[in-house]
């Protein structure tokens, strides 16, 4: 049954669509602005007035930024950390969630509560720092990896997904003589690709954007990840601006280029992977 839309309805839809269009532009424009600045010449970028298109188009800022070896070190560290965290994280989260989803396992209720409890209470920054220090992981990228592999939220999302799976499949495999490990790795994991992909992407993004972790646990520049490096560039350029030094080092365009280089991987893959990000929330829901 289709009811014809009245004038009021159509007006409502138009206004709604218009507001959303404006909001979308507000979300996108700052990135475009940085992009324009990064491709503008140093003087034009610093002079101001670059809003819609780059002025005096040049790649100078990018040449300047990419000449610095540390951006590549940071890039490599970020990739290394993100890949390992995601790989290990997805596996361990799925394994933990699978056990928690088994009602016949004694203590599954207690363990689930213990996982949720981490979400509402934590030891705080200092005790966590001392723990990491005690493990001799300060200034070691593995500190970032190990701390981020299992998060309570991800575990609960995956657990909810496993709990909702029909048990017939597992029972059939069990009757065919497959053990729990075999069932998990050969039947459950492949069937859960969607939710695992979502959780994997969350872990990857969290790792890529993690700023507090490296700020606290990494000391030497060889172990900087991208966010830490960007922070240093921005701080350095700000300092240069206030002291009036390095006028030709092109404050705005250098910051712009650094920012664009660091968000490029996310901007490139994001539109294609977006549906996976959302899917996990749909299947897992926030309900613990």
């Amino acid at each position, binding site marked *: *049954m289709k*009811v014809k839309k009245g004038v009021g309805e159509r007006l409502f*839809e138009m206004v709604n*669509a218009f*507001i*959303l*269009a404006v*909001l*979308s532009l507000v979300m996108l424009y*700052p990135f475009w602005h*940085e992009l324009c600045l990064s491709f503008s010449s140093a003087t034009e*970028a610093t002079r*101001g007035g670059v809003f819609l298109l780059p002025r005096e188009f040049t790649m100078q800022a990018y040449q300047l930024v990419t000449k610095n070896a540390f951006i590549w070190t940071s890039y490599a560290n970020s990739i290394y950390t993100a890949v390992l965290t995601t790989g290990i994280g997805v596996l*361990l989260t799925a*394994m*933990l969630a*699978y*056990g*928690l989803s*088994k009602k*016949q396992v*004694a203590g599954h209720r207690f*363990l689930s509560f213990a996982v*949720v409890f981490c979400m*509402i209470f*934590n*030891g*705080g*920054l*200092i*005790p*966590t*720092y*001392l*723990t990491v220090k005690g*493990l001799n992981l300060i200034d070691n990228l593995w500190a970032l990896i*190990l*701390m981020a592999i299992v998060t*309570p939220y991800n575990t609960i999302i995956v657990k909810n997904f496993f709990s909702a799976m029909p048990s017939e499949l597992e029972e059939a495999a*069990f009757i065919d*003589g497959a*053990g*729990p*490990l075999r069932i*998990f790795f050969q039947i459950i994991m492949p069937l859960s690709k969607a939710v695992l992909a979502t959780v994997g992407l969350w872990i990857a*993004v969290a790792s*890529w954007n993690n700023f507090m972790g490296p700020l606290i646990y990494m000391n030497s520049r060889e172990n900087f990840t991208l*966010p830490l490096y960007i*922070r240093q560039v*921005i701080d350095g350029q700000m300092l240069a601006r206030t002291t009036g030094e390095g006028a030709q080092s092109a404050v*705005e365009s250098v*910051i712009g280029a650094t*920012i664009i280089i660091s*968000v490029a991987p996310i901007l490139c893959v*994001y539109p294609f992977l*977006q549906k996976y*990000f959302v899917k996990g929330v*749909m299947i897992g829901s*926030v*309900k613990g």
Partner: protein
Amino acid sequence: MNAIHGRTISVPKPQKQSGWKRFRKNFRVHKYYYLLMLPGIIALLVFRYVPMAGIVIAFKNFRIADGIFGSEWVGLKWFEMLFSNAEFTNVLFNTIYISILKIVFSFPAPILLALMINEVGHLKYKKVVQTTVYLPHFISWVVVGGIMMTILSPSVGVLSLFGAAKNPLLEPANFRWLVVISDIWKEAGWGTVVYLAAITSISPDLYEAATVDGATRFQKIWNITLPAISGTIAIMLILRTGSILSAGFDQMYVLQTPATMDVGDVLDTFVYRYGLAQGRFSYAAAAGLFQSVVGLILVSISNFVTAKMGQDGIW
């Protein structure tokens, strides 16, 4: 293959056994499930529960050389020091102030946005809008901070069009509002996902019946959509209240400048500065513990209240 290691075939009436014995038997039968859980449990134990035990240093005079157990007990000394310190009370005030602003303004933003997105009839357009508004969530605060500095800059930013003389991010009067606005800009879009997921489970029949009865769009939103997602709103609010004393480390650290320290210094950055930059571990741990405990109490209270109001809580 190895059919011996299966699940238990459920025994109708287990004989009376001690709890420990039952657990041991259960453990033997299900050892592979425990094996699967083990690495994850270890990770949580080491990085979440060991630090919880490390909280004791808030009641000790911790020195690295003495170790956590060797350091002497000092009771509530650090807490007394904190609350008699004007800087700490100011930090506490800032934290609560910013959190309340965020709950009042940032919390409803994704709900409103989700309702608007849901009303878009054109599917392609809806997808484009969703993809766009989710984007800032995937950008780190460091980058967002850099972008804000630029876009608000009086020389190159959008504000230069209006002849602004100073970057508002550096002005104490505007700082907290910019914290809230940037929080909305970054997270409101992604926040809609949960609500849109809840909305998809509403039966279309409800809307059709309402249309037949001559309900307007606003009436349908108010009487059908909103009540249907109220449970989700409640859960999100419970989780949010728990973090009333954490204004978000990354955001605050990145946006703070010496000029805005007075209005922008919050508990997270206070703990970081005193604990790690100055090495006053116990003092900072006391502030951190205060933060965690208040969070726990608030979550419990709001969970209790929502349960009383007839909504599902988080546990």
